[in-house]
């Protein structure tokens, strides 16, 4: 096995195993910390795919932002003396059937279809992505910034305590 394959299998196992812990763990806080490992694993896969900018973005935004927000969510929706933050499951059997079916179908498609194989040589991507943002994808870029602003204001509006009510 080449070095790339070894690293790929390490990251792939790490990602999928920790994702399984996220979904199957009964304790919410374990899920949240396992999600950290999943995000790191996906960042590693990005590095293997030659997407250096995305790997850094993944670490900054997912690990630094989204995961912290989720941890706040875990802490704020339970009483502080509630030591075991249980999370119940419901309709486990039908959920398992649907998820397993999806996995089988997606894997079959991925393995059977004839994909084009033009491999791009790994090269730094940050400059290229920045140029695309300010040329071909300028309108989506601006829309995304407005979306972020609106989401921030909306989140603040939703959680504020109404004094008059």
């Amino acid at each position, binding site marked *: 096995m080449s070095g790339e394959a070894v690293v790929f299998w390490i990251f792939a196992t790490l990602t999928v195993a920790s994702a399984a812990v996220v979904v199957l763990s009964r304790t919410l806080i374990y899920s949240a910390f396992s999600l950290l490992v999943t995000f790191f694993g*996906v960042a590693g896969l990005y590095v293997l795919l030659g997407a250096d900018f995305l790997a850094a973005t993944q670490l900054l935004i997912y690990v630094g932002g989204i995961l912290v927000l989720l941890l706040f969510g875990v802490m704020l929706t339970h009483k502080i003396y509630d030591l075991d933050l249980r999370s119940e499951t419901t309709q486990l059997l039908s959920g398992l059937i649907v998820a397993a079916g999806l996995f089988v179908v997606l894997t079959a498609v991925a393995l059977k279809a004839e994909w084009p194989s033009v491999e791009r040589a790994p090269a730094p991507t940050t400059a290229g992505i920045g140029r695309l943002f300010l040329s071909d994808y300028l309108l989506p870029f601006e829309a995304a910034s407005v979306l972020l602003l609106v989401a921030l204001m909306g989140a603040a509006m939703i959680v504020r305590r109404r004094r008059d009510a």
Partner: protein
Amino acid sequence: MIGLQHYLVVSAALFALGVLGLLTRRNAVHVLMSIELILNAANVNLVAFSRYAGGGLGGQVFAVFVIVVAAAEVAVGLAIVLTLYRLRRTPNLDDADILKG
């Protein structure tokens, strides 16, 4: 030799696990985590196609947009969950079955 298919299978596993969590969990924060898994699976696919199927950097740009939408979604989603918790004293989605505030 690691190719496109390896990444697609990993992404399919992530996606299936996310759907499993989405369907079987009752805690709203847990459901949000499952949605993050699904979005990450989609991102792995986009980046893998951008590497192995030609098409240049477009896939990676799209993945950045997915990350932006995920950040917005988790902020608004958590705001709703916190409001729900304040209102009903429970993070369980089954108890959020009325449509008035």
